[in-house]
């Protein structure tokens, strides 16, 4: 059915988002908690250590965990207030079934799971196995992600499973694999501190990876020069040595221009290139035309900035590259990242202290969540689903014939397009909220409305879950045991602090119960997440992401273990590529020439302005969690549109005016924030909000040909001042999508 059963306002009234302003047990002093549970933040890929205060099976507060080496007690506001979710009034406590005209009614687990299994079978029998799709997320533990992937291949036997890392950082993964051979940050973060030159490309570190800031500033205090690329002056950009306000989509101009200058000035490590790489000559040839003047036109900045960047990066003794969504969210996202990584390999500054490269993976388990089989083209251990040996190994671990494992399926947005085209008729969604986070949101909503059956596993009624036939209540990170893998490649332990409330269940239990109903109970007989991890170790053995040597005890003793860790005696691998040994079969890095090409949608007379989207420090991804935490809502209640005063003046817009941002696909209404800290040809809207406030109403559904990531960072819009709004959506609270 997959249509709203009752109007949004009524759904919001019952399921929120509501703000939780008061912790469990009230604001009065916490007294002595029953226990302090050492675990990690549930939000971004940095996975900061934190201690949760637990009393009477409730999380009542937090205490910094200063011993954990990555963050040493440091936290961002999301980490500080994350504990407000466990006792949240919006928590889903029972399975819910859609009732037309009435909303949702509580049903038993028995009936909810029976119906889900029955619908899966019905759709698959009527339209084929692949007509049922699964979309998962990277805020799940490794154990949950592993079970979801196995469930798709063994229980549902659909090829069409993918995960929301596809919307996040997958371009970085593809680029890293192409040049370096392994999809993981090359270094632990500690190497940042020892770098003399740091290049930060497309990352609003201060807001989206706040703890990384201290690493950058420590390097700076030691004399490091820092270059930062962003169309907006972000908090970190204020204090760097060279801020390059690059035009959205123009990054390749900067990187190719820098390398052109470095070749001219002799800042290339030819010895390293000869010994450890392939493809240099073709790359050098392709760079000939990227003079600073030519490159500057692409990048939309003065040529002097490119020369200065080369002068900082070229001759440095040690250096570190960091990049994030700003490079990755493009229809040429992989090419953007490859052009940046070329700069690292050309200097030979990788695989030793203070030298390397990191992708700042965004989601809580952005790294691990993509390694163990929820990706449409991978099997556990970052194995290739089309590689016969890889399939054979996994088939052995799962105890199924190799030929029963489906082949490569559709990626996240492609899968939703298949739903739109009615090639996929049923969908199971967990840990993802595409009606806020997917591009071209009006299209995505229409796609979901065409589903014959739609089930959602979540702990809150997300904007997408409202469209479901069945909503199955799941658990928070602090309500389950398991591991995640941080942006550093460090495998760490999340410890269960409290039980899930009422009838809510851990995600892996829901999946296993469903598998039993699909007739494969024997393959999903897990008693605990630890048993799942033991199987994951074996499944990943010999793969690129080899966890075989990692045990939960070893993680506890060492404050995490970096993969690959092929044997129990192995200490783990904080730094990849030491001694110039890269991940490809020939042991070399493979340079990739990159030619700049335009965005999928360039500004024109009708839509003359570039819209770029991103995040704010107070919110996480689609806001399903953070728009329910009072303190974070207070910190950033609603989205806004950043406009340079020159553009604002042209359009007759002043601070706090209501504005309509309009693209060919949709529009949103927010207030203007007139600031000098953005390029005059570009406007910015943060994307964490739904409905008429959703930045993704405007974004374009153009995908990178390799990574299939959407182009969130560039689309063409027009802007106009509008009168004060007066509609039902506007009247909602800001956390629900209203506007004040």
């Amino acid at each position, binding site marked *: 059915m997959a249509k709203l059963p009752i109007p949004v306002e009524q759904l919001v009234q019952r399921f929120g988002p509501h703000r939780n302003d008061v912790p469990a047990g009230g604001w009065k002093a916490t007294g002595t908690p029953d226990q302090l549970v050492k675990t990690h933040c549930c939000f971004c890929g940095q996975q900061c250590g934190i201690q949760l205060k637990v009393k009477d099976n409730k999380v009542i507060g937090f205490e910094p965990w200063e011993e954990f080496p990555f963050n040493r007690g440091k936290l961002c506001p999301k980490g500080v207030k994350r504990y407000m979710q466990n006792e949240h009034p919006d928590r889903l406590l029972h399975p819910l079934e859609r009732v037309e005209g009435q909303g949702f009614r509580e049903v038993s687990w028995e009936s909810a799971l029976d119906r889900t299994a029955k619908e899966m079978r019905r759709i698959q029998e009527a339209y084929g196995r692949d007509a049922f799709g699964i979309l998962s997320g990277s805020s799940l533990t490794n154990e949950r992600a592993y079970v979801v992937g196995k469930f798709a291949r063994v229980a549902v036997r659909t090829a069409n499973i993918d995960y929301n890392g596809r919307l996040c950082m997958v371009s970085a993964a593809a680029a890293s694999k192409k040049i370096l051979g392994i999809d993981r940050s090359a270094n632990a973060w500690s190497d940042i501190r020892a770098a003399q030159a740091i290049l930060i490309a497309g990352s609003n570190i201060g807001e989206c990876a706040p703890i990384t800031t201290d690493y950058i500033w420590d390097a700076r205090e030691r004399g490091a020069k820092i270059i930062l690329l962003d169309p907006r002056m972000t908090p970190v950009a204020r204090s760097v040595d060279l801020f390059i306000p690059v035009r959205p989509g123009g990054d390749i101009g900067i990187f190719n221009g820098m390398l052109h200058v470095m070749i001219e000035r002799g800042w290339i490590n030819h010895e390293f290139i000869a010994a450890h790489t392939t493809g240099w000559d073709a790359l050098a040839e392709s760079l000939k035309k990227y003079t600073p003047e030519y490159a500057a036109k692409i990048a939309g900045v003065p040529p002097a900035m490119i020369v200065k960047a080369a002068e900082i990066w070229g001759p440095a003794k040690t250096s570190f590259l960091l990049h994030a969504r700003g490079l990755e969210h493009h229809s040429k996202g992989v090419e953007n990242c490859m052009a940046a990584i070329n700069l690292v390999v050309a200097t030979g500054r990788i695989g030793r202290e203070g030298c390397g490269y990191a992708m700042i993976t965004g989601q809580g388990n952005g790294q691990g969540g993509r390694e163990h089989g929820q990706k449409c083209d991978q099997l556990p251990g970052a194995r290739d689903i089309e590689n016969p040996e890889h399939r054979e190994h996994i088939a052995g671990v799962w105890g199924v014939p190799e030929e029963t494992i489906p082949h490569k399926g559709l990626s996240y947005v492609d899968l939703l397009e298949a739903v739109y085209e009615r090639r996929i008729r049923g969908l199971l969604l967990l840990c993802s909220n595409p009606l806020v986070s997917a591009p071209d949101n009006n299209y995505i909503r229409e796609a979901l409305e065409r589903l014959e059956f739609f089930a959602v596993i979540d702990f809150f009624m997300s904007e997408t879950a409202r469209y479901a036939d069945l909503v199955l209540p799941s658990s928070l990170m602090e309500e389950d045991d398991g591991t995640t893998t941080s942006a550093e490649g460090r495998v760490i332990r999340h410890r269960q602090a409290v039980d899930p409330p009422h009838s809510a269940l851990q995600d892996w239990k829901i999946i296993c119960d469903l598998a039993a109903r699909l007739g494969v109970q024997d393959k999903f007989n897990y008693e605990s997440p630890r048993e799942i991890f033991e199987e994951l170790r074996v499944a990943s053995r010999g793969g690129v992401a080899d966890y075989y040597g990692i045990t939960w005890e070893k993680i506890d003793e060492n404050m995490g273990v970096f993969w690959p860790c092929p044997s129990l005696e192995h200490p783990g691998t904080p730094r990849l590529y030491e001694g110039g040994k890269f991940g490809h079969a020939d042991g070399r890095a493979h340079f990739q020439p990159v030619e700049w090409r335009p965005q999928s949608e360039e500004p024109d007379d009708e839509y003359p302005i570039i819209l770029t989207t991103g995040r704010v420090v107070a919110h996480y991804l689609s806001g399903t969690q953070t728009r329910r935490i009072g303190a974070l809502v207070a910190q950033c209640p609603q989205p806004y549109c950043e406009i340079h005063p020159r553009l604002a003046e042209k359009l007759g817009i002043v601070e706090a005016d209501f504005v309509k941002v309009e693209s060919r696909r949709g529009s949103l209404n927010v207030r203007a924030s007139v600031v*000098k800290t953005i390029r005059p040809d570009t406007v910015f809207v943060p994307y964490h909000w739904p409905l008429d406030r959703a930045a993704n109403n405007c974004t374009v559904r153009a995908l990178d040909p390799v990574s299939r990531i959407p182009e969130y960072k560039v689309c063409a819009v027009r802007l106009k001042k509008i009168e004060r709004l007066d509609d039902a959506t506007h009247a909602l609270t800001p956390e629900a999508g209203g506007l004040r």
Partner: protein
Amino acid sequence: MSENAMVIDPSRCIGCQACFQACSECDTHRGRSMIHLETILRQDSVQTAPQVCMHCEDPICARVCPADAIKKTPDGVVQSSLKPRCIGCSNCVIACPFGVPKYFGEIDQMMKCDLCYDRTSAGKKPMCATVCPSQAITYAPLHEIERSRRGTPINEFHFGREVVRTKVFIVAPEGFAEMRVGLVPGPGIPKSDDVAALLEETR
């Protein structure tokens, strides 16, 4: 108290408000944040700066208090008002040159940053300095800060003719011995945050 010093470095601040949010989690004043996170002219710049109590040698808040409710500990920490004495007049709120004390109507009392006396007296760092992701707020030995930071930690402030010395330090650009209120011209200081201007200047 240890030899640690509280040091604020605005050049590091990213405006994330982790300090503000964590302060409200402190046991002695849960639900109320004592720290201020100032946004400075957002239209012109992304500059932000945290403001904790500077713990003046001769605290103006205490001097102007008609009820003698604000006390300093022997180790130089200026505390929140004493509940039995505070009359809620807000003289301190108005007089503090750093704008630190907060008056809470619902309890009719002034409260302010006391450098997390409960934590620091037990050998821990203040909450804000513990969580601060950018370490714009740091609690560390002063010689360590002097050795490792580019700027100079200073604790002398001139507000007109009023000279205030404080227990808490602020990292100023190198070459400054004290801070005088007003625009501070100097090397590298006012750097334009106007992106349009930056694109033109370098051309």
